[in-house]
């Protein structure tokens, strides 16, 4: 195959549109806002290190709280990397090209902060090395450590390798005067010259990684579900938990990538590259994924709800009609049913409605994880008694909210800075597509038929 020829001058419209741009006023405001949240969260974490986990509202019964539910959320969001860059690639969906890098950086940022938040949850974070020195392979936590580390590395490679030609463009377009920038791009561009051999190598790598990342992505979320499903607890003791978590993760991740894509499209004026067609397609995908998740939800709640075993029954009652009912039904209706209904209509698949619906999906997904983790712990086999009244409930403290918000802000900061440094839509892949218009038309035809 002929290597892609990228013109490095003003005549190349792709470069003008897609090269990373300096933050404008709103961009700076956004970064400042995120930094403030991160700093507050950092301060809260210092307090937690000094005083111990007593600064949280977790106690002997609710021994896991929003740190863990936030961890599960991050793992869920990170699944999108494999969805767009691997599954859509392997199924030959051509319109995915402008979305690949967005979803891959979301995946890397999310899985990175999933690892961070799990350290925040530890009572003795300075003993983290014990996992490597004394690790027991029998523990699902160790499986999670292994699979998350692996996924982080593979996702980073899947982000970095297709980035090489674009880093080289950045390197070549950076004037000698800005020394650090020049060095930075030169270092990461790995002597990229755009030769046919080099292109052949990246294509090979991307293909291998795309195949590799799919089982890994299923793995991270299945193993994470096992942290719960391997216990006897009401609401967790379910053989349905692996696929249930994977389905929820695909839905949340799809919502996440749509939301981020919408913001970037408007902020950097990428309407030419990310078209209404993209939103329409992604919306259809999100409907499908939401339907699958709805199916698993029905399984997960209807089957034990039909039997109402003693402790299961109490747990379900607290979700259906009790303390957590308002949150539970909000999440199910606004995080799943409403999005499905809205996006079934063509008007509902326009960019703005899809963006709003995606935000609902993401927020719903966060609270859904809370509802998976916390209410179960409040319904142990032996009823909670002989403890202070406050131990019967769980309401996160400001420190927990601050640290959790900081982790979310941190993930967004990673994405923001990535966009500042690198082209968020792959220039060389877009050029490649433009240079092979026949294939493009064929794909469009194929899609129109479908």
């Amino acid at each position, binding site marked *: 195959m002929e290597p892609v020829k990228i013109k490095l001058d003003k005549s190349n419209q792709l470069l003008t549109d897609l090269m990373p741009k300096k933050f404008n006023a709103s961009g700076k405001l956004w970064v400042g806002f995120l930094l403030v949240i991160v700093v507050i969260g950092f301060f809260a974490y210092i307090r937690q290190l000094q005083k111990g*986990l007593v600064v949280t509202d977790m*106690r*002997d019964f609710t021994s896991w709280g929003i740190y863990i539910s936030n961890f599960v959320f991050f793992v869920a969001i990170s699944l999108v990397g494999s969805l767009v860059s691997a599954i859509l690639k392997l199924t030959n969906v051509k319109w995915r090209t402008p979305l690949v890098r967005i979803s891959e950086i979301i995946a890397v940022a999310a899985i990175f902060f999933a690892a961070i938040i799990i350290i925040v949850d*530890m*009572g*003795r974070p300075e003993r983290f090395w014990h996992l490597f020195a*004394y690790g027991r392979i029998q523990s699902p936590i160790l499986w999670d450590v292994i699979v998350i580390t692996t996924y982080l590395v593979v996702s980073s490679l899947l982000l970095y390798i297709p980035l090489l030609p674009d880093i080289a463009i950045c390197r070549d377009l950076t004037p000698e005067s800005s020394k650090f920038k020049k060095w930075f791009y030169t270092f990461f561009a790995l002597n990229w010259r755009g030769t046919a051999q080099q292109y052949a190598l990246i294509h090979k790598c991307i293909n291998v990684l795309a195949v590799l990342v799919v089982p890994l992505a299923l793995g991270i979320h299945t193993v994470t579900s096992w942290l*719960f499903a391997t*216990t006897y607890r009401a609401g967790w003791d379910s053989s349905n938990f692996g696929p249930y978590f994977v389905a929820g993760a695909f839905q949340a991740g799809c919502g996440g990538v749509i939301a981020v894509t919408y913001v970037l499209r408007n902020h950097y004026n990428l309407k030419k590259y990310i078209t209404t067609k993209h939103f329409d397609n992604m919306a259809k995908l999100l409907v499908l994924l939401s339907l699958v998740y709805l199916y698993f939800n029905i399984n997960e709640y209807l089957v034990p709800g039909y039997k109402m075993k003693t402790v299961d029954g109490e747990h379900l009652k607290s979700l259906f009609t009790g303390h957590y009912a308002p949150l539970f039904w909000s999440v199910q209706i606004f995080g799943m049913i409403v999005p499905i209904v809205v996006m079934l209509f063509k008007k509902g698949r326009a960019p703005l409605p899809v963006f709003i619906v995606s935000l609902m999906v993401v927020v719903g997904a966060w609270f859904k994880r809370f509802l998976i983790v916390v209410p179960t712990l409040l319904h142990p086999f*032996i009823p909670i008694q002989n403890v202070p009244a406050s131990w019967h409930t769980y309401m996160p403290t400001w420190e927990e909210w601050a640290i959790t918000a900081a982790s979310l802000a941190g993930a967004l900061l990673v994405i923001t800075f990535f966009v500042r440094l690198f082209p968020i839509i792959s220039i060389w892949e877009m050029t490649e597509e433009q240079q092979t218009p026949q294939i493009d038309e064929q794909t469009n035809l194929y899609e129109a038929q479908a």
Partner: protein
Amino acid sequence: MDSKNNDLNDSRRDFLRKGFVATAAVATGLGLTETACKDTKSKTGDTVKLLSPDGKIVEVDSSMINPAIPDSLLSNHNVREGVPGKKFVMVIDLSRCRNAGKCKSACSKMHYLPDNRSYIKINKMQDSDKAAPYWMPTPCFHCDNPPCVKVCPVGATFKLTDGIVAIDNERCIGCRFCMVACPYSARVFNWDTEYQLNITQMNEIKPHAACSTHVTGTVEKCDFCPTNTAKNELPDCVQACPNGVFYFGDEVEDVVSNGDETVRLSQLLKDKSGYRYLEDLGTKPRVYYLPPVNRQFPFKDVEGQNETDGQTSHESGH
């Protein structure tokens, strides 16, 4: 494996030793210097900071610390070894429990816990609406198929050969997976620094080196009072109960005792229909219950025992 254990044991011993010295230093003032001078070891030049009971930082040469206490004063207990040839077992007779609470206070005292905290809980149970309520004390069940040990990522909780499920608080990373894995809510966490022992208590707990010193950010639970059992003494909750609710013994001997009466374990379980709580979970607890029949005391509810109504009825599993 063994060398690791020894290291760990040594560090624990060192810690206790330091605690001992710090107390001695405050108690005897300058006397410490004399004691240290008697020892042939020369000064190393390294100083060690110690916290005295009144909160002052005392700095002493590290050479003064190790020789100050002979090893014999400290327990040789290895946290990862059980009492050889034993399989400890407990039987709890629910027909005798009237929620006197003495087991809890004895447990708190033995383990240097605040009054409102103990490893044993006395739960109000009611198997169904029509069934009579009863009290059920729950220590750790020291299961033979322990879900908590299975899930521990670092081997901080483990089975001893004598059947006890023990915890190494120097190893625990505080992930609390064991707490959610335990179906009986037997485990508690040191959320706060307030439970951490001070130097005086560390000195007092010296004979109980096998027991937790409440390391902040780690999990702990009932340990069947390992220093008692190693000396053929009953755990403190068993000794403290005024109604003989708890029987404790060795399954290998097939004998359990509540202090007053000593009986064959198999005979007791046979005669009184002994059972294990939630047997169908397959955790194989080492704690058996005798059903709450022919009760010795009328059930008297306690104000504020259970703040949430409508949550009390549960299958007791028998």
